[in-house]
Every structure is written in C-alpha cells, then in structure tokens.
C-alpha cells in the first residue's frame, strides 16, 4: 500500500503538472481538494482520466469519486479495491 501511495503521488504531480512539488510534499491524509492540495474540478478530470488510463478505474457516480479523492490514503485504498489493471 505504501508503494502504491508513492506511485499515486508521483502520478498526481505528473498529471497536474505540479512541477514545483515532490511526492513528499503531499500529506497522506490531507484533502486533495479545497484546503488541502487546493485542486479543483478541472484537476479532478485530469485525475479521473489518469486513474482510468493507469488502473482501469471508471467512477460510476459522483459519491464514489468524492470518496476516492478525499485524500491520498483514500485514493490508494480505492485504487487497491477497484483496479482492473
């Protein structure tokens, strides 16, 4: 799981072009949206497409996406539970 979290952090940085950030700058349990990383809906689109491409994850509803994007911890757990590749 720890390896998956580090991998996800790097993929978030790459997908969103957060060039000034390192994986270590992203706190595991901090919210990705709002007061945490400060991402918005456009970023969520990029993340949704990244998860689809890398892990074959397709969100069936908004609640599932909201739950997954709560933090890196939540995202890693969601990917672990739902990945198809």
């Amino acid at each position, binding site marked *: 799981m720890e390896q998956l979290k580090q991998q996800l952090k790097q993929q978030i940085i790459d997908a969103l072009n957060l060039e000034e950030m390192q994986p270590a700058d992203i706190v595991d349990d901090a919210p990705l949206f709002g007061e945490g990383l400060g991402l918005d*809906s456009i970023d*969520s*689109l990029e993340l949704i*497409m990244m998860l689809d491409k890398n892990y074959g994850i397709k969100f069936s509803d908004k609640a599932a*996406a909201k739950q997954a994007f709560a933090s890196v911890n939540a995202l890693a757990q969601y990917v672990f539970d739902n990945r198809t590749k």
Partner: protein
Amino acid sequence: MTDKQWTGRTGGTRRMQRILIAIFRKIDPVWLYPLMAVWVVGYILFRPIERRGIWHYWRYRQGKQPLSAAWHLLCNYMEFGKAILDRFAAWAGRPMQVVVRTKDLWQEMVEHPTASVVLGAHIGNMEIAGYAIQMPKPVYTLVYMGDTDTVNTNRQTLFERKGLHIIPIEKDGSHILTMHQVVDEGNILSVQPDRVLGGIRTLTADFMGEDARFPEGTFRLAVAEQVPVIALYIMREGHGQYAVYVYPLSDGQYTSDNHHEQAKELLQSYVRQTEQMLRLYPHQWFNFYPFWQQ
C-alpha cells in the same frame, strides 16, 4: 455573486411564463411583438447591467458611433425578445422551421462513430435545436438550472423527446465527471462555453479585438478526451425560422502535448468561428452582461 449582478435567468415570473405558453397555444407569437417592444424599452431603461454589456458590444467591439450603437442595441434587444418568444412558442407546441446550412458537416457530426464535443455559444437560439431536430444518437447538454421550474420542466420535456439529455451545472463543478462519462461512453456532449459563472478557472482570448475570459473546464475536457470538437450555431432568420451551422474545430489532435496549451489552441479556433458567425448575425449577441469586463 451579488444581487446586482447578472444572473443568466430567463426573465419573468413562473406565472407570467405559464400564461405566455397558454397564450401561444391559441395565437401566433407575432401578435405579441408590439407588447414585446414595450417590454424591451422598459428592459433597456431599467436593467443597467444588461444594457451596459450590449452597449459595450456595439459601441466598442462593433465600433459604432453612439447614435448608431444605440439603434443597434435596440435591434439586438428586439432580436433577443423574438428568440425568447420563439422558445415559449416551442413549449406551447408551435413548430419551428430549421434549415441546416452546412449539411455535409452536420451529417458527418451526427453519424460520427465515436464521441464528439459540440461547442455552441449564447448567440442565436441554440435551444431551438433541442426542440426541432431529432437527434440520431444521444446528445447530452450542459444546462444552467437556475431558471424557474416552468422553464426547466418545459425545456427538459421537449429535449427528452428529441433525444437530448440535460446535465445540470453543479456549484461544486462535479458535473465535469458526468461530462467525462458521457464522452467516454461515445455520446455527443454539447456545451456553450462562453459564460463564466462563479469563481471557476478561466482562459483568456482576444475576442472581437479585446481580451475576454472563457471557462477553462470545457476546453480542457475536450482536449483531454482527444475527440473531435465541433462548433454549432443555431441562428434566427425570421419568424420561427432558424439556420444551423456546423464547423469542425479540432479532430482531437493538437500541436502541443500539454492539455493547458491544447485548450488555449482549441479556444482560439472557437473564438474565431464565433466571431465569424457574429459577422453574419451581429444582432444575435445574447450575452447580456459586461462580457469583456467580467
């Protein structure tokens, strides 16, 4: 958004809108044109935000002298009033005549085997397409739901009959997930990306000789999905008569490999095409707020 700002809603109370629909079941909208002219004058006099927006368009973006700009402003409002009456007439069951001017491109769009993104604008009367044209495959359109129940219900009922489905704009921006799902499933997604509502991320482009802001989300989605992007305009040509124009904006391939840069590239194509349409139908600019100063 403060109370004094433009809200993007269809005018009139729920009761007035219902009465209008009932009237149009009995009489042709043209009989209401004189009454509409009175309403238009009142609207110009007492709605300064809207007036300022249209004045700027005619005085500075169309470069008209003050007297000429005032005349064109009045014509612009009249044209808008007629387009709105046509909308209520459609809700009352009156048929609209729609002619496709770019038939080959239209055919290509509706028969395209994969998903596509259709970009419209608040010029002409795009909503009429949803009432008059039977869609050959599911089309999903992003709609602001801040209107009255009368407007929302009538719009939704007629849209559904023609195979057009509504995606409501959500305050938290979560509609972008639905937009992605629609494209991912191979459908047509239709958006009018010429209005910035709320504090969303924007792109700036020179539009009619002055910088204007456009919502970035739609353009980012279109380029990220790598699907064909088409411009669609439904322009009013007479009493209940409309012309459809379709133009390809992108085949899904871009010169840059960065989504932000690609979105700017797509925006450039979109504004150039919209400018061209406004040259043909200058009085059908229906963004009734200070568009360039937002």
